[in-house]
């Protein structure tokens, strides 16, 4: 057989899907750096990281869910729900000590509702989270009367402007969440069970893993991270708009998939994969703004990137699924 052909095929099927996206990331940075002198400045890099924080934290939770071969479409709604409640509390003069637990609680409630339906009552994740996505937003809009809510500066100051050695605390928080998620996934029994369930939940049941509890916990974690993401995005923007979080679930899912977390379950990592996925999406957004591209182009590019990453996911996993 032709060895050239073989190695070309190996490159296309083996090497490219696995390392291709690091290559793509490097290429992306190089292109934007060439096109815009400000792209690689310290200020802009910090800006990209800041912009990544809320989505990034939610991606960690989404990674847990997708690894179980599930999906959480309600993440955007959870962000909105948590942001609205937090905005309300901030408006009433509450400090971080109240607001942070409130964000976690909001997320946990949404996650638990998803988890009960999916883990205990075996509802298809797509349908269960589509339902919570819809009624969650409706209920929240009823509560907020669909009015925009503007936040005062104090908490914004505390969260956004504190830093350690020039790196915003909030960025460090995101990285901490990534590290924590990765340690849980790689180094704890619970994490390994997530991978096992994602590969074959019938077999997991047979050997006596408590699939219900593990899946429930995955959705709970996804809810909590989305709740925290909600707090951060409201504070970062300084306002809670009625459209906040709309469509964000797809950005979150695509960051994870782009980072190599397989929609078929059981494959992929929070670090470095999912984090790089987040950074790629943020870089595209930031870079296109810097080069004054048509704002609609951003959606197009994002769509193409998602399309390609999902396709690569399918090609890579086809062999085993057959």
């Amino acid at each position, binding site marked *: *057989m032709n060895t050239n052909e073989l190695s070309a095929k190996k490159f296309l099927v083996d090497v490219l899907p696995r390392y291709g996206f690091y290559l793509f990331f490097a290429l992306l940075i190089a292109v934007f750096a060439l096109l815009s002198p400000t792209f690689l400045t310290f200020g802009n890099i910090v800006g990209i990281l800041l912009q990544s924080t809320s989505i990034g934290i939610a991606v960690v939770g989404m990674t847990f869910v997708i690894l179980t071969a599930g999906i959480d479409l309600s993440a955007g709604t959870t962000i909105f729900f948590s942001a609205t409640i937090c905005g309300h509390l901030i408006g009433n003069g509450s400090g971080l000590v109240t607001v942070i637990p409130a964000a976690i609680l909001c997320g946990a409630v949404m996650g638990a509702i998803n988890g009960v339906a999916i883990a205990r009552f075996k509802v298809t994740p797509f349908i269960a989270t589509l339902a919570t996505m819809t009624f969650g937003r409706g209920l929240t809009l009823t509560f907020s009367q669909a009015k925009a809510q503007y936040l005062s500066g104090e908490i914004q100051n505390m969260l956004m402007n504190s830093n350690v050695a020039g790196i915003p605390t909030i960025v460090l928080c995101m990285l901490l969440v990534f590290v924590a998620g990765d340690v849980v996934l790689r180094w704890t029994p619970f994490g*390994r069970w997530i*991978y*096992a369930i994602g590969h074959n939940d019938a*077999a997991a049941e047979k050997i*006596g*893993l408590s699939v219900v509890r593990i899946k429930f916990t995955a959705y709970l974690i996804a809810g909590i991270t989305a709740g925290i993401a909600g707090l951060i995005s409201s504070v970062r923007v300084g306002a809670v708009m009625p459209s906040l979080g709309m469509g964000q679930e797809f950005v979150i899912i695509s960051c994870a998939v782009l980072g190599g977390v397989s929609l078929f379950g059981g494959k992929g990592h929070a670090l470095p994969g999912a984090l790089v996925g987040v950074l790629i999406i943020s870089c595209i957004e930031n870079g296109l703004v810097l080069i004054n591209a048509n704002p609609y182009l951003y959606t197009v590019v994002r769509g193409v990137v998602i399309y390609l990453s999902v396709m690569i996911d399918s090609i890579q996993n086809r062999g*085993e699924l057959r």
Partner: protein
Amino acid sequence: MDETILELHGIRKSFASVRVLEGVDLTLKRGKVLGVVGENGAGKSTLMNILGGIIKRDSGEMLLEGAVYEPKNPNDAKKKGISFIHQELSLFGNLSVKENLFIDGLPTKGGVLVNYPYMSKRAKEALALLGVRVNVDKPIDSYSMGIRQMVEIAKSLLRDTRVLIFDEPTTSLSQVEKEDLFKVIGDLTEKGVSIIYISHVLEDVFALCEDICVIRDGKVIGQKPTSRLDKDAVVKMMVGREITDLYPYIQKNPGKDMLKIEDLTSQGKFEDVSFDLRQGEIVGMFGLVGAGRSEVARAIFGVDPYDSGSVSIEGEAIAPTPQACIAKGVAFVTENRKEEGVLLTKSIQENLTLVDLDGIRGKFASINKAKERSACKRIIDLVKIKTYDPAKQEARQLSGGNQQKVVIGKWLMKAPRVFIMDEPTRGVDVGAKFEIYNYINDLAAQNTAVLIISSEMEELMGICDRILVLSKGRLTGEMKRGDYTQQAIMEYAVMGG
């Protein structure tokens, strides 16, 4: 040394109103191998699932080393020393060998983080005991079925296993892997582990087991020492009647050429395969694991692509797609029944009508329910599928033999002109096998050309008019009925390509 380790008395179990076990008694001695045989649906799996703690019995008594044994769940059974190696292994392909070994009880440091170094050490020790040398950090997917089975056995040995249950352990193993497995089973019994061995392969059961227990219709027909039994006696006990000839053969007069394969080649799988099938002829294809038998069949039916060569029916070339083949009257039974043969969660009726939806069409492209029912009834009666309601019962609730009948039955809706069957009797009990051979004969009598791929040489010798032998992707031999000898076939099969 004839100490009893496990005793079952009067085990009963019903599902809904169907009585599956009607008072089963069983005795297992320490360090011995007990063979459990019976037709599909006889109740073996249910019995073993009760032992393994997967389901609960309705009544009866179980004693493990004299104490009452009452498993609450699979983990509890394992803790009490009873491990179950299922036909479909409970391994996770995305996890490493060592993670698989410990997945149901990952050891931790300080109760939080997984202790990987300890796992590596124990995993290597456990596998070394079985004579297996693998890289325990690599994903289990990268190893053969034989190794995976050994990993599954090692997994049970990491606990203090006293009784090890095997359910059809050899179905996906090569000959060498099978011999390794039997050697390991021998070693285990010497260490005092007792084995329950369930299999349809009677040769293996006779070679391995000290005692054989035959189950039929939820009852134990007899448990006797192997030395006092022979194959015919066991078969008779299993089916409850005498099967005079295991392999029914009918005299046929093959007609004109039906299927012609010329120089079929798929790089790295098989090369220059040419043969033809005639109307009303049954042709067998033999080869060792990896010889490329299934690959050839899949290429003919257009499931997998081929690089060069041609496939033609009655002189007319057909495109390599399943649709084109079906349109020309070619039927195909795959070797992967569960993945590719049946839609497990669909009803029997839906499975049966799948390839001939046109035949049951009503007005405006709808499905005519009455036609569907009557068409299904015809097939169910023809192939004798045991079902309480074909429209309601899901295929996964059927035993392996009955599932296979569904797979074959769906192709009988429209009489096929060419029938390619890849391992049609794998994992099927003696009674159902006999029935399958009979429909194959009926099909041939109606002028269908049949190609059967099988790993069981005796089966091919019994029912085929001709046998083709593949070795390393090449056709190395062809024999007519009358010239068959096991030795000649094996010589062709090991011939260097």
